[in-house]
């Protein structure tokens, strides 16, 4: 690997770390300006003023903000996320379990959706403007246009309630056998695949079609190569950068944006966990979740950039 690429990569990683630091400040500030009082939110509607005052004292809400930020950041760097204000559980442990579930669901959805989307994109290019292309585009665009909770309810009704093929409650627990887990998450995975498919498929199609205009594709055609071989060997590698970008964005969505699907299928992932703690103003947990989500986004985007850099022939083979 040549030094130019290494330098660009190092710059890119450093930029990501800086970004993460800035995001941590934003997250902290964001949790400070949430309306309402932490103690009131924890104790809810039935809190007496006395109980509220007691809780405020206990939580140390009277320290200045910058002290609390530095304490928090120091803890995070040592790997200590603190304990939840509301139920006193260790945050790292509680999040660990939820994050594992979220990554499992996202991973299963991605393993199906990414290859399928790229394959369908290739097929669309191969049969562009003919019926397979129109059918694929039509169906996937229809799927992305319907709100995901509605797709969820429809699948739940037919496959969960009417046919009984898959459970409508996607409860996964620790120590559950792998196959049972897969069966439990069948319906949410199906919904997620339908939701992310169109975006990646359309991008693959557009990027490859763009490359297909190039002169060297014409040369390959004239040389007598088969159409699928031209697309797969010559067009796709040059279209990889935009496709990877879209794939990474969708992967990030699968990790951080699926709270609706989680709620509909009662899946114990990160989304509902975050929402519950925001509602109760459980600030340490919200901050920890925010930081994890930000890291996932930044990491995946960094990977996309790195792949794009490496895939760029001008950088790989400098004159």
């Amino acid at each position, binding site marked *: 690997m040549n030094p130019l690429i290494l330098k660009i990569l190092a710059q890119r990683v450093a930029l990501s770390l800086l970004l993460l630091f800035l995001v941590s400040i934003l997250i902290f500030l964001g949790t400070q300006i949430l*309306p*309402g*009082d932490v103690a*009131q*939110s*924890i*104790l*809810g*509607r*039935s*809190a*007496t*003023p*006395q*109980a509220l005052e*007691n*809780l405020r004292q*206990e939580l140390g809400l009277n320290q200045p903000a910058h002290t609390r930020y530095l304490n928090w950041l120091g803890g995070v760097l040592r790997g200590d996320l603190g304990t*939840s204000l*509301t*139920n*006193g*559980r260790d945050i790292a442990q*509680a999040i660990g*379990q*939820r994050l594992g579930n979220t990554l499992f669901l996202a991973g299963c959805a991605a393993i199906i959706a990414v290859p399928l989307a790229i394959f369908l994109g290739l097929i669309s290019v191969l049969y562009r403007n003919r019926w397979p292309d129109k059918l694929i585009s039509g169906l996937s665009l229809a799927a992305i246009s319907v709100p995901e909770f509605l797709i969820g*309810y429809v699948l*739940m*009704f037919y496959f*969960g*309630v009417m046919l*009984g093929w898959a*459970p*409508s*409650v996607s*409860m996964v*627990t620790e120590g559950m056998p792998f196959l049972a887990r897969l069966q439990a998450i069948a319906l949410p995975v199906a919904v997620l695949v339908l939701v992310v498919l169109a975006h990646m498929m359309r991008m693959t199609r557009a990027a490859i079609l763009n490359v297909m205009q190039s002169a060297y594709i014409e040369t390959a055609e004239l040389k007598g190569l088969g159409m699928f071989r031209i697309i797969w060997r010559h067009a796709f590698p040059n279209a990889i950068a935009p496709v990877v970008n879209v794939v990474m964005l969708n992967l990030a969505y699968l990790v951080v944006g699926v709270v609706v699907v989680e*709620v*509909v*299928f*009662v899946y*114990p992932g990160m989304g*509902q*966990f975050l929402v*519950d*703690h*925001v*509602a*109760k103003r*459980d600030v340490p*947990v919200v901050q920890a979740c925010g930081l994890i989500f930000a890291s996932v986004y930044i990491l995946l985007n960094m990977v996309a950039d790195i792949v794009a850099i490496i895939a760029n022939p001008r950088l790989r083979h400098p004159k």
Partner: protein
Amino acid sequence: MTDELQRLARLTRLGGMSRRDFLGRASALGIGAVAANGLLAGVARAQPVQGGVLKMGLGGGESTNSLDPAAALSQVPFHFTRCFGETLVDVNADGSLDYRLAEAVEPGADAKTWVFRIRKGVEFHDGKTLTPDDVLATMRRHSDENTKSGALGVMQGIADMRVDGDNFIIESTTANADLPYLMSTYQLAIQPNGGMDDPAAGIGTGAYRVTANEPGVRHVFEKFANYWDDSRGHFEGVEMVVINDATARNAALQSGQVHIINKVDPKVAALLSRAPGLQVKRVAGRGHNVFVMHCDTAPFDNADLRMALKLAVNREEMVEKILQGYGTVGNDIPINAAYPLFDADLPQRVYDPEQAAEFYKKSGHDGTPIVLRTAEAAFPGAVDAAQLFQQSAAAAGIPIEIKREPDDGYWSEVWNKQPFCASYWSGRPVQDQMYSTGYLSTADWNDTRFNNAEFDRLLVEARGELDQDKRKQLYSQMAMILRDDGGLILPMFNDFVEGVRDDVQGWEENGVLELMNGLSPSKCWFA
């Protein structure tokens, strides 16, 4: 006849009659409806079958929940607290007391002192034996002024507590004939050493022992082998799955993944009841949806304007459209027929736009729109209810402006702060507790800023009155004061609407709180 039943219930509570005798006498009276259900269930039920795992799909749980009973506020913590823990007494469907960890309760001569005889031979899930000292420590933890307990409010009128042999004794600051009822508050589940050592350990004396605690996801229990009461706890285990989405709850019940669900949306209750293999249960409760005005803030400090707004609500329409008929009309008092000593002869307030217009004119309000704050968080359908209110008031010439507030922060920023907003109450076991919690001028949650010296005086007088006829009369007077002068607009009481699969047996109606007052795991069994 109901009076007679209530007299007997009161007698039983005051220790003048055993519970068994009471049941016998009450049946002999041929009491119908709710009371008879509760009674018959105790007398002529089929033999329960042991075994199986009961799965409950429950809305109202969060990842932030804790097993500490002091922190229990929403529905799922209510249910798991009732599952692993027990209180000194429970309230039966008919308003009588059910003796649990206290095997007898007796008042002193002036109803200031109450003696609870603590049951012997009851074992905690950690193997320790229940003692009166555990009870004392529990009550101390909940009444300590540094506590975060949701039960702090009910513990405030207590002057002193002590242990004497097998007895746990409470001294109240004022005479309180209803004091034993306060001990049924579900947060007051007895814990070893009062939970002082580890409040969230989930150790109690209940029929089921905690085996898995995943807040916001599920709570799993197994039958506690050494449970003291053979007539309860027929399942091998119980699993509560937190399902906050109403449609997902329905689907889980329909597909048989769970056996019981709470909070069926009234909009789909009729449709759901047509599905095979399950029943939709409707239980009249004490919860109510309200609009609250601050009596000390302009323009609501004007009694004529308050009356104009009360007359401008179409209650029948709200029950029909907001609750889809799953409820009853309210009368601007937080008490309905579910309460003991309720006076059924109180005049019912009805929608009367003409009279409302008269009162509005008399109030001399300057005609600026009256701002009503609402949010879906206030109660399901609160935004629609506000719009119905706006329309029915417009017909009387009263302009109302609806301000929709975000759900998030509604209870901290709007309720009990803004002078006119939508809200809800979940009811209390007895009238005294309901009034003391929300309508006494000094109450923490006096969300209507109601300040009426006569009302306060009657409340204290009724609390110490042991003659039930006089007491009923006092409550009747208080109801009239609140109804005509208060800042409470109470259009409707909502029913509990719940789904139960056919294989669950032993279901009873108990509207004190949802799902048989939280006792379905203890009292039901599989066919």
